[in-house]
């Protein structure tokens, strides 16, 4: 048991140190979890790189709150945001009805955040439904939906939640619909295509409007505000990297709606990597030859594997170190044990995504919060099985150990842990397999791993990319199963395997 833990630990510490050794970038660009944001992040990244500023793009980190928090805490230095989102979502209560850019700038500055001029296009919200269905029902405006309460609405989770999204829209138009679900934006399009949904929220620069032949319903009450794209950056960035601002300014007013739709279509429909789309734009529009850093399959696979193993390895090793002693405590003091098991059980019931998001205010984004979340999830199976394994030892054997005159700790080490080893190992195996699956969610908070290609694949509707994450994750789970079979032979005493 101890041998195993030490081995695991040394293995992962090795990984950890190789991570630390990576080059530290001057500027970190973030992007949200949808294609347009990733393209804009890529454009900013490549523009900065063209000025020899070492820039890293942490792509598809999460939703608005996520990026905003990351910007405030300095996890990232800049990202592309929309004026409407800032006014309606982040500062809704602070602007007191004033919806002009100057006021917005002032409020932002109060947070230590600066804003570029608008990049050009307005990507506002709209509602869309399949054109054929809209024609059949004679719906062309959002007000028209009121006559058809039977229609099924599926909105992106963000649109469902934000004040200026569905709650406000429903009020403004007094929409009676009850069948309203929240889901991933990209899945919503597929829902429309398959007929399981009738209406979804769309962005006016979506490439999918044409692709899925959608009718954009007219916002006849002028509900949706302007969503002009801007770059937000930390105020301290101009001091730290004076070359950043002039570089970003080049982009102001350069991206029209048509350009943006075309870029979105290149990425989503032609399946060009965002880096290539961004490079194409910079070359054609600004004559900048940028370094798009295309990464080959084997390189990215290797990187995701290392990231994934880091998440799983460190969190699991830490969980073993903490959970086995907790399990011992549970077996020794049943009342305290129920408390510990209850606590670990509660942790287990927190939805994984929620747990990941809880970590952000505490630990920011990236690898560590994901590791902590995975660690917390791994506790229960190990504590429970350690406790069960120890409790199930026949009392006559414990009595024999005592009668020999073995002190408490020696009894634990020489008799109890070996006898419980098979059960403890089973708990660790359960934790490890759960962990491998759960770690794919780490990509949502910027921890990378096999979740990264899965996330990108869902966003781009690219099954190949999804498989690039899903297959290795499944193989890793199988491999871990196998590794534990092998470990059992090594760690469980032979006498218990006869």
């Amino acid at each position, binding site marked *: 048991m101890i041998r195993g833990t030490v081995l695991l630990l040394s293995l992962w510490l090795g990984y950890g140190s190789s991570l630390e050794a990576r080059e530290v970038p001057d500027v970190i660009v973030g992007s949200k979890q949808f294609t347009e944001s990733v393209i804009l992040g890529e454009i900013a990244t490549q523009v900065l790189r063209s000025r020899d500023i070492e820039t890293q793009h942490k792509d598809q980190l999460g939703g608005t709150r996520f990026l905003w928090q990351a910007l405030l805490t300095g996890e990232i230095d800049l990202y592309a945001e929309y004026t409407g989102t800032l006014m309606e979502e982040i500062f809704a209560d602070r602007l007191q009805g004033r919806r002009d850019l100057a006021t917005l700038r002032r409020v932002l500055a109060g947070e230590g955040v600066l804003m570029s001029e608008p990049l050009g296009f307005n990507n506002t919200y709209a509602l869309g439904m399949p054109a054929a269905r809209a024609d059949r029902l004679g719906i062309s405006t959002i007000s028209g939906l009121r006559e058809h309460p039977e229609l099924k609405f599926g909105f992106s989770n963000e649109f469902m939640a934000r004040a200026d999204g569905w709650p406000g829209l429903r009020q403004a138009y007094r929409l009676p619909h009850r069948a309203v679900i929240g889901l991933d934006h990209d899945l919503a399009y597929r829902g429309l295509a398959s007929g399981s949904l009738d209406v979804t929220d769309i962005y006016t620069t979506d490439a999918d409007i044409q692709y899925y032949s959608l009718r954009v319903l007219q916002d006849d009450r002028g509900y949706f505000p302007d969503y002009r794209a801007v770059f937000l950056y930390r105020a301290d960035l101009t001091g730290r990297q004076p070359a950043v601002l002039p570089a970003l300014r080049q982009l102001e007013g350069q991206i029209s709606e048509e350009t943006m739709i075309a870029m979105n279509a290149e990425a989503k429909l032609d399946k060009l990597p965002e880096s290539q789309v961004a490079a194409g734009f910079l070359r054609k529009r600004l004559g900048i030859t940028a370094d798009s850093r295309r990464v080959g399959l084997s390189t990215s696979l290797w990187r995701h594997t290392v990231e994934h193993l880091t998440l799983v390895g460190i969190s699991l090793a830490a969980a073993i170190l903490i959970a086995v002693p907790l399990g011992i405590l549970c077996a020794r003091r049943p009342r305290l044990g129920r408390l510990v098991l209850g606590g670990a059980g509660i942790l287990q019931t927190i939805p994984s995504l929620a747990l990941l998001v809880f970590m952000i205010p505490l630990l920011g984004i990236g690898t560590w919060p994901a590791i902590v979340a995975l660690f917390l999830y791994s506790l229960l199976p190990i504590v429970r099985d350690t406790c069960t394994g120890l409790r199930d030892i026949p009392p*006559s*054997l414990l*009595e*024999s*150990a*005592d*009668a*020999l*005159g*073995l*002190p408490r700790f*020696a009894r634990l080490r*020489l*008799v109890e842990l*070996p*006898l419980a*080893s098979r059960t403890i190992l089973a708990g660790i195996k359960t934790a490890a397999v759960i962990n491998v699956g759960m770690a794919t969610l780490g990509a949502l908070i910027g921890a990378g791993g096999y979740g990264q290609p899965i996330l990108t694949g869902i966003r781009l509707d690219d099954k190949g990319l999804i498989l690039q994450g899903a297959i290795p994750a499944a193989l890793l789970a199988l491999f871990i199963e196998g590794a534990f079979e092998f470990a059992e032979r090594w760690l469980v*005493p*032979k*006498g*218990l395997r*006869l």
Partner: protein
Amino acid sequence: MLKLSRVTKEYDGVAVLRGIDLLIPRGRVTVIIGASGSGKSTLIRLANGLILPNQGTVEFMGARVTALTALAFRRRMGYVIQEGGLFPHLTGRGNVALMPGRLGWPSARIDARVIELAELVRLPVEALDRYPSQLSGGERQRVALMRALMLDPEILLLDEPLGALDPLIRYELQTDLKTLFTSLGKTVLMVTHDLGEAGYFADEIVLLREGAIEQRGPVAALIEAPATAYVARFVQAQRSLIDNLTRPPT
């Protein structure tokens, strides 16, 4: 050697032993006998401090057995329970060598002691390289006996050591145990529910009834001069059926 004075043991307010006074003399075999629930197993556990009395004292070699002293005393007492209590994750040798190994005996000394004891308990040395699950019931008890004797204890405590064995193996082991007791001359405290077995081994028998001593003395005294009606019934009940079959009723 062992002295119990006014020992009372309760579990959840129910007295299992009530005011036991008992002296186990050095070099003699004392056998505790009684029906199930009479407190005999409790008594042997009190002797090596696996449990402590609610009232009264247990003394070993003149010193009181307490929570603090019990650990050290146990190393001077060999203890064997019904099914041996061998650790299934260790081979026979691993079981036997566990304590001496912990106490830092050199391996040559351990090996010599193992060979000596294997001969004494009449166990082939090869059997020691097998795991408990690969040994027969009789072999397991022989290994358990070796483990108990390894540190050359001053007293052997045996709790129904032959209780789970087939009759033939049991008979064989009874004979071997008897020889062993005689040749070692150790103090022995043994628990059994079988009067014949008790009589075979004991210098003195202690008959327990509901946590109190009903009668003590050599087996002949119990049979020929039962102190109470209960003792007479106990003896009668334990006379073997064969006796009744072969001797026509008078």
